[in-house]
C-alpha cells in the first residue's frame, strides 16, 4: 500500500513538474512577445500545444529510420524523468549534468532519424554547440571544490551553513545561467531551432511524437531551473521555489528578447570564450580554496 501510494505520488510530482515546466515556457514566450510589443500567445499555449499534438494524426516519414524516429522520443522523456527523480531525491549533480549533455545526442537523434535535410542540420548544429556544455563542468568543478561533494543534498546543506553559492561562486552561477540560456527557445544560442531550418531538429516529428518532445521540453525546463536554484540558492520551500523559478524564467526571457540569435560560428566562439574564462576562474578557486 505504501509503495503504491509513493509510486502514485511520484507520478503526480512528475506530471506537475511537466505541466509547470510547460507553463514556464509559455510565460517565457509571453514576456518576449510583450517586450517586442506583440500581444503574444496566452501563457498556457505550450500546454495546449502538447495536448493538441497528443490527439493529432501521427505518422512516420517514409524516409525515416522508424525505430530510431520513435526511440529517441522515449529516450528523451526517459532521461529527463531520471534527472527529475535525481533532483527530488537529492542525488548526484554529476548525473543530472551527464543527462543534460546526453540531451545533445537526443537532439542529434531527432535530427538524423527522419532523413530530412532541415532536421539533419538542426541535429548537426546541436552537436556543434556542445561547446556550451564545457562551462557547465567547470561550474561543477568549482562547486565541488567549495562543497567537497557533488550530492545535491550535501550542496544544499553547505549553503544552509555558509550562505548561497550565488554569492560565494558568482562566476560559476553566471556560467550555468548561460548554459540554461543556451537551452531556451528564441535565445541567442538557439541555433538548433533557427528559422532557416524550419523547426530545426524537430521539423519532422508530428502528432504524438511531437507531444512527447513537448513533454520532454517542459520537464527539462523545470529540472534545469530547479537545479540552478538548488545549487546556487539552497533549499527552498515549495512556494519560494515556484516564485524563484518564475523569476528565473523572467530573467531568461529578458535575455532572449533583447539579444539577436547568433550565427552558429559566433555562438560556438562565445561559448568557448566563456569556457576559457571559467577555466581561469576555476584555477584561481583551486589555488585559493584548496592550495
Amino acid at each position, binding site marked *: 500500500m505504501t509503495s503504491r501510494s509513493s509510486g502514485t505520488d511520484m507520478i503526480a510530482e512528475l506530471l506537475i513538474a511537466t505541466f509547470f515546466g510547460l507553463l514556464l515556457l509559455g510565460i517565457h514566450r509571453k514576456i518576449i512577445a510583450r517586450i517586442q510589443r506583440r500581444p503574444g500567445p496566452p501563457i498556457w499555449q505550450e500546454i495546449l500545444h502538447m495536448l493538441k499534438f497528443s490527439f493529432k494524426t501521427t505518422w512516420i516519414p517514409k524516409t525515416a529510420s*522508424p525505430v530510431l524516429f520513435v526511440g529517441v522520443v522515449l*529516450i528523451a522523456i526517459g532521461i529527463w524523468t531520471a534527472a527529475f527523480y535525481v533532483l527530488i531525491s537529492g542525488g548526484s549533480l554529476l548525473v543530472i549534468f*551527464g543527462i543534460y549533455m546526453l540531451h*545533445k545526442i537526443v537532439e*542529434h537523434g531527432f535530427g*538524423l*532519424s*527522419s532523413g530530412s535535410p532541415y532536421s539533419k542540420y538542426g541535429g548537426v548544429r546541436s552537436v556543434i554547440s556542445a561547446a556550451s556544455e564545457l562551462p557547465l563542468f567547470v561550474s561543477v568543478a568549482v562547486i565541488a571544490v567549495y562543497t567537497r561533494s557533488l550530492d545535491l543534498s550535501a550542496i544544499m546543506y553547505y549553503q544552509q551553513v555558509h550562505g548561497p553559492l550565488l554569492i560565494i561562486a558568482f562566476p560559476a552561477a553566471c556560467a550555468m545561467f548561460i548554459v540554461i540560456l543556451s537551452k531556451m527557445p528564441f535565445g541567442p544560442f538557439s541555433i538548433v531551432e533557427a528559422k532557416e531550418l524550419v523547426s530545426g531538429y524537430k521539423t519532422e516529428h508530428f502528432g504524438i511524437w511531437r507531444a512527447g518532445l513537448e513533454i520532454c521540453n517542459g520537464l527539462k525546463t523545470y529540472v534545469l531551473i530547479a537545479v540552478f536554484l538548488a545549487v546556487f540558492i539552497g533549499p527552498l520551500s515549495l512556494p519560494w521555489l515556484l516564485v524563484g523559478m518564475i523569476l528565473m524564467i523572467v530573467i531568461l526571457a529578458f535575455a532572449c528578447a533583447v539579444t539577436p540569435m547568433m550565427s552558429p560560428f559566433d555562438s560556438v566562439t562565445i561559448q*568557448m570564450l566563456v569556457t576559457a574564462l571559467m577555466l581561469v576562474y576555476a584555477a584561481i578557486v583551486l589555488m585559493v580554496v584548496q592550495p
Partner: protein
Amino acid sequence: MIDLVGGVPLYILEFGDELVYLTPYTITLFLLALTFTVLALISQPEKQIDIAFGGDAYRAKEISVDEMRFRRFMAIACGLATMGAMVTGDIFNFTLFTAMVGITNVGIVAAVKSPHVQDAAYQYGLVALAATVPLFAGAAVYAAVTGSLSMIELMKGTVPAVPLIAKGMLMLGVIGEGMAPFYAAKAEMFRAPGAPYVIMCSLSSLLIFLRVVEIIMLG
C-alpha cells in the same frame, strides 16, 4: 578530496587485474550506451534526402546492404567499447577502450562513398591518433605516481595524490577523441547517411568525456 563522485558504488567485481564497478553515475551512462547500441542493432538506416538549393530537385541516398552490415558492425563495436569504458574501474582499460572508440568512429563512416565524409574521417583519425599520446601518457603518470591504476584505490584515498598534469593529459586525450574544440572534423562526418550508426560517433565521445570527468575527480 571529494569521495563518492558518482555516488556510492553499488557493485564491485574484482576479476584478477580487471576491475568493474557500478555507481548510479556509471550505471546511467552504461544504460544509455546499451540503449543506443541496441538501437543501432535493430534500426534500419534512414533514406537521407539531399536537396539542390535554388531548385526543386531532391534525391534520396540509399545505403547498400554490404555497406549497412559493415557500418552496423562498427557501430556495435563502438557501443561495446563505450560500455566497457563506462563500467571499468581500471584507468589503463579506460584508455584502451577510449582508443578503440576512436578507431571504431572512423570505421563507422569509412565505408561511406563520399569524398567529404572520407576526408573528414581521415582528419578526425589523425587528431584521434595524436590524442592517444597524452591519453596513454596520462595513464602512465597515474601508475608511476600512485603505483596503482585502480579507481577504487584512488577513491579510497590510500594512494598518493595524482598530479594535475596527469589529469590534464588524460582529459586532453579524451577531448582529442571528439570533444570541443577538436570536433570540427567529426561534424563533417555527420554528412554521412545512416543515422543509427552515425549517432554512435557523437554518443561515444560524449559518454567517454562524461566518464573521464568522474575519473579526474578521483584521487
